[in-house]
């Protein structure tokens, strides 16, 4: 076990301790996994509003006259097609087509792109982007300048609106704007990782504690609660959002991970494109698919999946679904069998347990 002192912390660390959160080592960060309980926090986000410290996430900025060209060269989605103030989900790939990371790309200006990347990957991402920078662009590691708070749930907008003069209703989903939150300059993005409506705000680290408290106070009338990484995981799983190290990693391509929608092969050259073109021609051999347990048991990360009584794949994420009251998960299967309605067995502590593949996402919010 890593000693707590060697773990990295966010500017909200003392707040989590004071709230009595259960802390865990998450990729080298001492982070809250839960406060009141994963199920309670999960339901709070689905029915009211939850507040998450996601300051461990990294930020990288690309600036300069060819910022868009570099962004497009290192990512799979078409960055230069974004409008100013718009964001999208994208992939950073190796030459061989596997993921360096999955990221959000925000276009701040024609010569300025703002990337939000995974905590444990941020230094690796930065080096990767720099190594491929053959453009008139600068790459800046900006994480130290930002804390990030996610406000998620049907009352997220009402909560945040109390603290900002920005008209939040005018920010469309996956758009963002810069504005004041409780008097502090913030980047306000209509994004999230919960499958629920919500916002993610990027704020100065020395204002994080005050803003965290302001947000919780503003949301109190709607039942706002602090939420940890445990609920964040069950929420994103219900929405079938990928988690690096689980659904995707250096050995998995976006085509295998059911993320073809973030790959724009027609936008021009980018790192990993050739490998994806070949893979597309040949067809992928394995594919990510959702499942539900049919019998008692939970198929968890890393468990073996059997088809016709023989090993055929593995579980990438699995958990009870607090919204659906079922045990759900995602797994890789041979592509020819990775469609809904396929009976499978998951080996739960040496016992095969019946499950069936299903359509995803498991949960989709009513709009």
């Amino acid at each position, binding site marked *: 076990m890593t000693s707590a002192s060697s773990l990295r912390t966010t500017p909200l660390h003392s707040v989590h301790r004071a709230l009595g959160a259960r802390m865990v080592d998450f990729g080298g960060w001492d982070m809250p996994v*839960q406060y009141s309980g*994963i199920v309670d926090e999960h339901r709070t986000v689905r029915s009211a509003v939850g507040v998450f410290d996601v300051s461990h996430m990294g930020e990288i900025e690309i600036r300069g006259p060819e910022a868009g060209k570099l962004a497009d060269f290192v990512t799979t989605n078409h960055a230069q097609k974004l409008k100013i103030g718009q964001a999208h989900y994208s992939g950073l790939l190796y030459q061989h087509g596997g993921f360096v990371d999955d990221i959000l790309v925000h276009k701040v200006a024609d010569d300025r792109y703002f990337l939000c990347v995974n905590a444990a990957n941020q230094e690796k991402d930065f080096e990767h982007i720099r190594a491929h920078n053959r453009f008139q662009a600068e790459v800046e590691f900006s994480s130290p300048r930002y804390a990030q708070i996610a406000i998620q749930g049907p009352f997220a907008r009402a909560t945040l609106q109390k603290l900002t003069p920005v008209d939040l209703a005018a920010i469309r989903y996956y758009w963002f704007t810069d504005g004041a939150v409780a008097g502090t300059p913030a980047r306000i993005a209509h994004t999230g990782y919960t499958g629920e409506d919500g916002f993610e705000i990027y704020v100065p680290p020395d204002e994080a504690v005050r803003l965290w408290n302001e947000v919780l106070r503003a949301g109190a009338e709607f039942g706002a609660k602090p939420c940890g990484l445990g609920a964040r995981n069950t929420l994103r799983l219900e929405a079938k959002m990928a988690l690096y190290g689980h659904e995707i990693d250096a050995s998995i391509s976006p085509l295998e991970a059911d993320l073809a929608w973030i790959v724009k092969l027609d936008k021009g050259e980018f790192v990993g494109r050739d490998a994806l073109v070949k893979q597309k021609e040949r067809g992928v051999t394995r594919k990510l698919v959702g499942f539900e347990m049919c019998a*008692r048991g*939970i198929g968890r990360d890393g468990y073996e999946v059997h088809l016709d009584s023989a090993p055929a794949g593995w579980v990438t994420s699995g958990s009870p679904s607090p919204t659906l009251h079922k045990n759900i998960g995602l797994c890789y299967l041979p592509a020819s069998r990775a469609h809904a309605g396929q009976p499978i067995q998951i080996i739960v502590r040496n016992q095969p347990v019946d499950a069936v593949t299903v359509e995803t996402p498991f949960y989709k919010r009513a709009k």
Partner: protein
Amino acid sequence: MDPENLRYTQEHEWLLVEGAIGTVGITHHAQEELGDIVYVDLPRAGTQLTQANPLGSVESVKAVSEIYAPVSGEVLEINAALADAPQKLNEDPYGAGWLVKLKLTEPAQADSLMSAAEYQAYVGAEK
């Protein structure tokens, strides 16, 4: 918070000794660490358990955790109510959340377990 009359293990089980009968459960600290418990797997009555060997498992939303026998003994009774109401382990770990009753085969083993004060110090040091 941890009852004075129980003995405790380093794996966060508790043992209540009443004559030749021992009742086993998991501690408040254990249920708190596990979070929302969804499944409890227990041995059948008649199973012979050996001290420090697996007794069963508890599964929460986030993880599966083995439970170990605090002492050796034969399983007399299991808490069948947990099958439909595993949340009792979270709500009342020292009461309605008990797991199994054992007929102790080596009662002296209980002396090797921690007292409530020792267990509290142990949990405090682990944090």
